[in-house]
């Protein structure tokens, strides 16, 4: 017995260690699953009047303003995660989805079928994607540690355009706001606020003094100089292209994404998927039942 004692003790310790390891693994897996289910993006396809939302694993579509959602089958996110969704306002039903390990995928039928559009990019770790507002085949992709790439043939080929804002970005949108030397503007949500650049990529500039980590931004297509941002400090609105910002009433404590939908309806969502809409540019909000 005395000779078996140390062996039994060691066996017990080994079993305990294995149990702890598996237990920790299960906890990590659960945390990862929870993390992956957090909502990260909103987009609106004006051609089909479809609202889109995404977590890291799936894209969902709603044709009734967010009251009901349908998961969209996508063939590509097997070993990748979704981090960005963009719908084209210049081409009906064109949607881009991008993310780390996923690259860029494109649908031109409102999400029914998808085509990979990563060839020509330096890697699949794509952080953000933005569709050009008026050019149906122009799209921008932000590749981690590389920069911003532009495609003018719907993602079939890409060209590096710029290193991007100095402190990185989490979302990029294209806007047809007036005053650009080229065809429009790009706005970026960055860890230090909103930055903008003409789409010739001439010079990044701070868009006002919004010195707060920005998570998402959108603009009112009917008034492109009206820009809205979800930041660490709350929701903000600019009516002058990002020069000055005013804090808005926020229906959620931590908005993660916002987008303009049909007839100027502004939507905001938090990580848990609680969706709110505003018909008066964010003055008042109503919860969307889902």
């Amino acid at each position, binding site marked *: 017995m005395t000779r078996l004692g140390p062996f039994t003790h060691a066996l017990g310790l080994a079993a305990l260690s294995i149990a702890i390891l598996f237990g920790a693994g299960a906890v990590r897996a659960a945390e990862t699953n929870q993390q992956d289910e957090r909502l990260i993006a909103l987009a609106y396809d004006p051609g089909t009047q479809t609202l889109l939302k995404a977590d890291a694993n799936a894209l969902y579509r709603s044709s009734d303003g967010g009251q009901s959602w349908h998961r969209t089958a996508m063939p590509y996110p097997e070993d990748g995660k979704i981090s960005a969704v963009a719908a084209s306002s210049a081409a009906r039903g064109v949607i881009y989805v991008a993310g780390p390990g996923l690259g860029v995928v494109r649908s031109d039928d409102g999400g029914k079928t998808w085509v990979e559009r990563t060839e020509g990019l330096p890697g699949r770790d794509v952080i953000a994607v933005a569709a050009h507002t008026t050019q149906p085949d122009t799209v921008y992709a932000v590749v981690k540690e590389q920069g*911003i790439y532009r495609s003018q043939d719907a993602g079939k080929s890409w060209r590096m*355009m710029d*290193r*991007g804002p100095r402190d*990185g970005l989490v979302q990029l949108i294209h806007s047809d706001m007036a*005053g650009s*030397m080229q065809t429009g503007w790009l706005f970026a949500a960055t860890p230090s606020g909103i930055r903008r650049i003409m789409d010739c*990529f001439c*010079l990044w500039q701070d868009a006002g003094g919004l010195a707060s980590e920005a998570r998402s931004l959108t603009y009112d297509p009917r008034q492109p100089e009206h820009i809205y941002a979800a930041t660490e400090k709350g929701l903000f609105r600019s009516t002058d*292209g990002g020069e000055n910002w005013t804090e808005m009433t926020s229906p959620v404590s931590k908005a993660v994404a916002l987008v303009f939908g049909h007839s100027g309806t502004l939507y905001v969502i938090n990580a848990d998927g609680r969706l709110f809409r505003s018909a008066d540019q964010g003055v008042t909000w109503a919860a969307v039942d889902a």
Partner: protein
Amino acid sequence: MGAMLTAASCVAIARAAEEAPSLDSESVKSGRAIYGQYCASCHGANAQGAPDWTRRDEHGELPAPPHNAEGHTWRHSDAMLYEMVVKGWRDPFNKTKRLTMPAFGDALSAEQIRAVITYLKTLWTPEQRGYQSEESRNQPFPHQTP
């Protein structure tokens, strides 16, 4: 994510440039003289731009940018550059009402404008010239006089 994209955002065309078309030497010579007379006072004798050109000045205006390889002139097509010289351009975020870039449509002929832009192309890298040439493929100089 936070560590990404930290490099300066000036020149970023990675794709190998196509061979840019050669420049007419007479046009370059003429353009250099025109540049010295009309452009150098703001953009610098060597097209190096005004000091601190990336920051708004005390009037809330962006100073004149460089036209050499350090600037962003090469990012624009021939048509766009031509139009900017003819009509001028105002940065919409300038705090004054005046044009950021004055209009020269009344001072320079079409040939002179083409010449000065041709001269600027000698200041760019081969990659930049290749990029600008591609941008100009569908947006060349206009045929009309200003």
